[in-house]
């Protein structure tokens, strides 16, 4: 029963990606598709509303992505260019097409839950949203066990009733 309720497989590590220039959040782990270390970009299927997509399509002339058409991505907070979105690609670069490619050098990251500064002792600390979620899961488990117990009880009750009638 416990197995059904606990999450299977790797957990989502929530994180946000911030603009190096102004600290605005540009994207988060919910839209993250992967990263391309050679090109030093992180790929996203969706980015935050703090990212603005250029209206003009540009032709790339560098050796790695020659012939691609892309639009520039800029940070709305500081107007810095922070990446590209490729619209037209050769076969080898299809995996990047229509994805938001943010330059790794232009972004910083923060993992939610990684903050460590605390004054109150662990023992005295109230319930946080995170520990509340764990409690809620425990409550769900108890509910499942209780439901099984209630079913058992009513089955036993019915059996006993029919037995009482017979005797």
């Amino acid at each position, binding site marked *: 029963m416990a197995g059904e309720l606990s999450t299977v497989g790797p957990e989502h590590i929530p994180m946000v990606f911030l603009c190096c220039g102004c600290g605005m959040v540009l994207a988060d782990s919910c839209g993250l598709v992967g990263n391309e270390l050679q090109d030093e970009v992180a790929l996203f299927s969706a980015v935050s509303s703090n990212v603005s997509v250029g209206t003009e399509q540009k032709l790339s002339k560098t050796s790695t992505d020659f012939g691609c058409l892309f639009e520039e991505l800029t940070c709305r907070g500081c107007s810095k260019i922070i990446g590209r979105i490729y619209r037209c690609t050769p076969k080898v670069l299809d995996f990047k097409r229509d994805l938001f490619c943010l330059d790794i050098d232009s972004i910083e990251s923060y993992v939610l839950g990684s903050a460590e500064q605390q004054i109150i002792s662990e023992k005295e600390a109230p319930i946080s949203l995170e520990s509340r979620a764990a409690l809620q899961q425990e409550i769900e488990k108890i509910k499942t066990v209780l439901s099984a117990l*209630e079913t058992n009880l009513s089955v036993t009750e019915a059996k006993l009733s029919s037995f009482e009638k017979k005797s």
Partner: protein
Amino acid sequence: MLCRDKRKVRCVEDVCGLTAVCNPVRERCEILSNSSFDSTTCRGVGLDELVVFQCRQCNAVLGDSLQLCRGGEQLGAVSCIRVTDEVVCEDCLVIDYEGPLNGCSYHVLHCRSCTMKVGFSLFSAFASVAHLRELFCFLKQNISCYILKTKTTVPASDLNFDISSLQEDIDKLKQRLVKAHNSMELLTQRLEELIISRTEAA
């Protein structure tokens, strides 16, 4: 942009020591390869409840909703158990003689990067706000929030951080347990009566 540089240097120290120059994000992206992006919860918290708290003036990350707890709303604040090192808790105590914190003493919290006051941490308080002592309370008007669900940044004052209590759930559970216990008692009683009537008949 002195503050940004400072943060970079710290990351380098943390992750690979001072000898190597590394990009903190790339480090993190590798960790992420074993994270499931499709999952709708993280540590049991629904993705729709994930919010990052930032300094409204300079966007320094101050904390997030995983460490959020109840009770800050009544003071127009967002209360957290843990915050990032971008939050500086001043050593000296301040006592207010007016406003909602009248008579309470607290430490002022400010942003390390831009020094703006971002909140307070209560040291002594009346019963009504005593549960907030030793927590970090961010003033809603001084912080902004990035909401992962909507991918937008909004002022904290636009959001409500009232977390519902689990008391109702627990109460319902208690009632069901008591009921099950009573049914069990009744069953035992009936069974015993049955046994007695059987032995008498025999």
